[in-house]
């Protein structure tokens, strides 16, 4: 049994165990995620030791077997997913302590993690599609976990439908590539070039935009905050949202320059627009959600300038940082029962250690050395600086960095200013603290691991003092602005617009939801019509049946019965001839013979 198998099926088994036992859900879940993390670590160690990529072939379609592969790239991603998942589950043990539906929560989380492991490890388009769907449906279940609350089911549905509508791109692109390359193997199909590659690349970009919440498909991610905070921590860091960027990182070698430019522009615009939204946001979790979109925008920008490995580094850093930030927000939410900025004001003073972790993660995200975010963000700016298309994208990247600093500083300022009394430590808080500590520590030290990872992936990551200075300057500027100036001053006339999520033409609702609803209404009308037609048809055939019954009873039955009655009556009459007296019978015989003879004699007279 290979580590590959364990990495995927340990969470699945744990999920079944949770559903069957319905107790100790948290412990089982953490154990399952722990086993998966160990398996992922084994895979990564194998990749580091230079061994051949581990492979697992599952039976699939006759000529398209389902392949899983732990190459250097995928095992690094698998390790990231497993690590973040483990810490998020530890955090969730505390966060979900009092929830009566714990088993359902942990089982779905584990399925989610397993699906994500399958997604990152799949070396095959068909398996990737399956995993893509699985993370879609598990995220729907998790966002809608508290479906009893008003608006939650709607948010889950919105997330599902938005990502689903973008998924069409993935479907078309995957089958296009399978058709052109003649194989479902991802690495082989990446040799595709020409129009097919451009088209497939753009379609994959649409799918990635949907999953990674890029402009204009960014709205659902903020609404997905309706789910429990551990869900957000997982969803925003290593799983659902990461899927889009991971997809693009994997297919990046195939993308022609024109497509790359589009990817970079989408990323660059997203990082600025969603950065502005985050700055104007009134809710801590929604701020973090917008920041996720913004950071993924930076990753897409890095892919666009031809540095997918840099995007991967930032993805990994961001996974650790953002899960830490969300867990911190979860603690404050736990303490205040709300995530509105005004409600959590001063919560940082009450939970100083959690706040310290939050600050470290926030500074890492802003890109302050020696925290991990500095290295990945510096690499992105350096890659942009030296890329041919970089001149247009560099300002966007720098603006994104400034905005990152500004909104993180704003969040920290809000959490620190205001009154807060020290909270009594509880067991739930201890679990949450342990869960949060892991990602924060990673956010601090990950930068040291980058050179090794770069060597493993065989990529040269450009660095330059100029890029570092620009990144640091932008981050510092953002932090200072965000800490001292309220967003109304920073955004000016843009503020109401940003708070509205830059809803151009009704935003996503206008672009996707309304046509879909119109289609649904039309289909509903059609179905009603169809239903009525069927009912009418049924009535008509009932009438036909009644008519044929009447004709059967009044026509055929009566004719047959009257025939039978007449036969009986004629028999009755014939009985009267039967006297039983032999000479009378004889007389009848003789008379009849006489008549017959007379007829015979008379017959010649008539001819």
């Amino acid at each position, binding site marked *: 049994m290979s580590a590959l198998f364990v990495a995927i099926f340990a969470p699945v088994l744990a999920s079944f165990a949770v559903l069957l036992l319905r107790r100790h859900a948290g412990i089982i879940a953490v154990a399952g995620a722990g086993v998966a993390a160990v398996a992922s670590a084994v895979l990564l160690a194998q990749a580091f030791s230079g061994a051949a990529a581990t492979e697992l072939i599952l039976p699939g379609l006759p000529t398209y077997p389902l392949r899983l592969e732990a190459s250097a790239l995928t095992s690094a991603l698998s390790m990231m997913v497993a690590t973040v998942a483990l810490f998020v589950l530890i955090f969730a043990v505390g966060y979900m302590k009092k929830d009566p539906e714990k088993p359902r929560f942990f089982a779905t989380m584990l399925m989610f993690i397993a699906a994500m492991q399958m997604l990152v490890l799949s070396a095959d388009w068909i398996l990737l599609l399956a995993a893509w769907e699985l993370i879609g449906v598990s995220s729907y279940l998790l966002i809608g976990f508290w479906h009893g609350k008003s608006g939650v089911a709607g948010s889950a549905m919105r997330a599902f439908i938005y990502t689903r509508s973008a998924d069409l791109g993935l479907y078309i692109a995957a089958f296009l590539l399978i058709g052109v390359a003649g194989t479902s193997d991802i690495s082989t199909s990446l040799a595709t070039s020409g129009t097919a590659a451009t088209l497939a690349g753009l379609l994959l970009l649409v799918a990635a935009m949907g999953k990674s919440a890029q402009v204009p498909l960014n709205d659902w991610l903020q609404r997905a905050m309706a789910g429990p905070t551990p869900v957000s921590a997982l969803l925003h860091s290593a799983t659902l949202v990461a899927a889009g960027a991971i997809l693009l990182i994997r297919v990046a070698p195939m993308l022609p320059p024109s497509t790359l430019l589009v990817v970079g522009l989408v990323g660059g615009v997203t990082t600025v627009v969603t950065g502005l939204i985050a700055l104007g946001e009134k809710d801590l979790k929604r701020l973090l959600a917008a920041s996720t979109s913004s950071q993924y925008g930076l990753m897409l920008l890095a892919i666009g300038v031809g540095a997918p490995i840099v995007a991967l580094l930032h993805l990994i850093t961001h996974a650790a940082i953002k899960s830490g930030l969300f867990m911190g927000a979860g603690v404050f939410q736990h303490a205040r029962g709300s995530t509105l900025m005004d409600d959590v004001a001063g919560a940082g003073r009450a939970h100083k250690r959690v706040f310290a972790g939050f600050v470290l993660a926030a500074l890492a995200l802003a890109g302050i050395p020696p925290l991990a975010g500095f290295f990945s963000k510096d690499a992105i700016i350096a890659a942009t600086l030296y890329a041919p298309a970089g001149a247009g994208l560099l300002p966007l990247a720098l603006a994104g960095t400034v905005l990152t600093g500004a909104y993180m500083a704003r969040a920290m300022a809000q959490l620190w200013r205001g009154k807060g009394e020290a909270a009594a430590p509880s067991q739930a808080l201890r679990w949450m603290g342990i869960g949060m500590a892991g990602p924060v520590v990673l956010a601090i030290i990950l930068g040291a691991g980058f050179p090794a990872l770069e060597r493993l992936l065989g990529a040269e990551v450009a660095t330059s003092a100029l890029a570092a200075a620009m990144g640091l300057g932008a981050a510092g500027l953002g932090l200072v602005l965000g800490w001292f100036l309220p967003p109304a001053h920073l955004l000016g006339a843009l503020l109401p617009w940003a708070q509205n999520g830059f809803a151009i033409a009704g935003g996503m609702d206008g672009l996707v939801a309304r046509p879909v609803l119109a289609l649904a209404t039309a289909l509903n009308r059609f179905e009603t019509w169809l239903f009525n037609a069927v009912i009418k048809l049924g009535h008509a055939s009932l009438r036909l049946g009644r008519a044929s019954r009447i004709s059967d009873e009044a026509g055929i039955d009566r004719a047959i019965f009257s025939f039978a009655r007449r036969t009986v009556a004629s028999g009755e009459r*014939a*009985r*009267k*001839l*039967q*006297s*039983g*007296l*032999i*000479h009378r019978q*004889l*007389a009848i015989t*003789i008379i009849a013979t006489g008549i017959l003879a007379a007829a015979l004699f008379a017959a010649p007279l008539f001819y």
Partner: protein
Amino acid sequence: MSMELIVALSMGAALFGTGVYGALSQTNLVMIMMGIELILAAALVNLVAFWRYLHPDAMEAQMFLLIVMTVMAVEMAVGFGVAIARFRSRGSVEMEEAQELKG
């Protein structure tokens, strides 16, 4: 047509008439059967007459006569069997009293 044939046919007709009268007028089963025998005998006389005077070379007619005679014998056997059974069970063969076969 020869006189002999007419004489023979007249003889047959007389026999037939006697037989019919007997069969219709008598009430005793045995007597009725005797009437029927006379009718059949009349038919035989006619057949013989036709053969003898019209087709003396056709030997098939004689065959036909033999078959009719066999039928007469069989019919007698059955008829007397019925009469004996009737007599044993009812003590009489008067047909005025036998109405069991009324429909």
